[in-house]
């Protein structure tokens, strides 16, 4: 179980060269896409297709890493590795945890966006 997500704004802004506008735009996009990302993840799991699940988890991994959520990204990597070797069965809990993580991150990012506005 990963620790609660804490926004490390400094590390993200460092990567973005200190550009607050891009940072705010990314928060908006994350919040716009989070439902869709959770749904796509669920659909990939339901399909039983390891390649599809691997691809979607890979996307989630990148998304979490973009917001410096190393722990969330590590969880995603673990699922991605299993999917890579075709081990889809038994991943329901791990995928549900990833969905929960995506939503947890969304709450924190939503608060940050509200502060910026």
């Amino acid at each position, binding site marked *: 179980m990963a620790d609660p997500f804490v926004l490390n704004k400094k590390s993200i802004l460092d990567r973005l060269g200190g550009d607050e506008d891009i940072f705010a735009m990314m928060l908006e996009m994350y919040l716009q896409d989070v439902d869709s990302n959770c749904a796509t993840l669920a659909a990939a799991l339901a399909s039983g297709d390891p390649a599809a699940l691997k691809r979607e988890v890979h996307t989630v991994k*990148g998304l979490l890493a*973009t917001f410096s959520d190393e722990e969330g990204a590590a969880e995603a990597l673990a699922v991605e590795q299993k999917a890579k070797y075709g081990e889809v069965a038994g991943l329901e809990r791990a995928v549900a945890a990833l969905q929960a993580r995506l939503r947890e991150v969304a709450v924190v990012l939503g608060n940050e966006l509200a502060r910026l506005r």
Partner: protein
Amino acid sequence: MNTVLIIDDSDINLTLIKALVSKLGECTPVLFDNPLRALDWCRDHVPDLVIVDYMMPDMDGLRFIGAFRALHGRTEIPVLMVTANDQKDVRYEALLGGANDYLTKPIDRVEFSARVRNMLSLRQGQKFLADRAVHLAELVDERTREIREREKELIFRMSRAAEFRDPETGAHIQRMAHYSQVIARGLGLDAKAQTLILEAAPMHDVGKIGIPDYILLKPGRLTPEEFEVMKGHSRLGYELLKDSGSETLRAGAEVAISHHEKYDGTGYPKGLKGHAIPLFGRIVAVADVFDALTSERPYKKAWPLEDARRYLEDGRGKHFDPLCVEAFLAGWDDALDIRQRFTDEEIPMI
């Protein structure tokens, strides 16, 4: 302005990369969330840089690069592959498979800007070299044209020098050259050969430079001995031109030595018969004789056109190659236009 093609199935990554590219300045980002649609776009557009994600549905980044590189003229366009930090094997494969460099996710602006700038510099260098190659090719074409024009002028003036020494005029060489071209066209020779004979025919009598004045300018009939000397102008012209590096001058050599040969083998200098006579020689024989007959000289009046035409017709298979005569008569209207265009009073350049 650089066109930067960005392909990523993640909207957030597309937007992020677009924003970073836009901040570089002098760049127009073109976005695709689907690699297949991006590939379609690439068939009609040439980007200056491609930034492509690795993991995408339908076609991954490696396959995209392979397909992109297979398009005509896209082998040198810089490609940056975007991969996750943990995908070292993918990065190796990308670099071996045609990517010029890679970017790791999460994207770092400093690294991103440096790598994109490097790739765009590479592209600018390619464009500069390509533009320079085009410019040099144009320059070479222009200089070659100038040299060709100078060569044509020199040939004309050299041919005129020979003509100055006998009663024939500058207009004669223009007319017979253009008649030769009419015959070449009528025989179905290609445009290059038609131009070649147009430029080579004026040299047919250049060997007259080497004939003594007392024979060349003799007002009366030549003795058999004098005629033998006169006949030497064919070989003299050939010797003068034969070893030239210029295709036109070498064709001129062939014309010089063969334009007095006759189809039935009674001509000179070698008494060649039929198709043993070089084609250009057979063509020029018709053109030269027709112009000589239809031109006024100090010692004769110009023949009426119909009489000259009949002379050519009667000479088919004897003096002349029948096919060359047919080709000339088929272009009769063109021949009359040439006759009007190049009168003995005016001598325009070819």
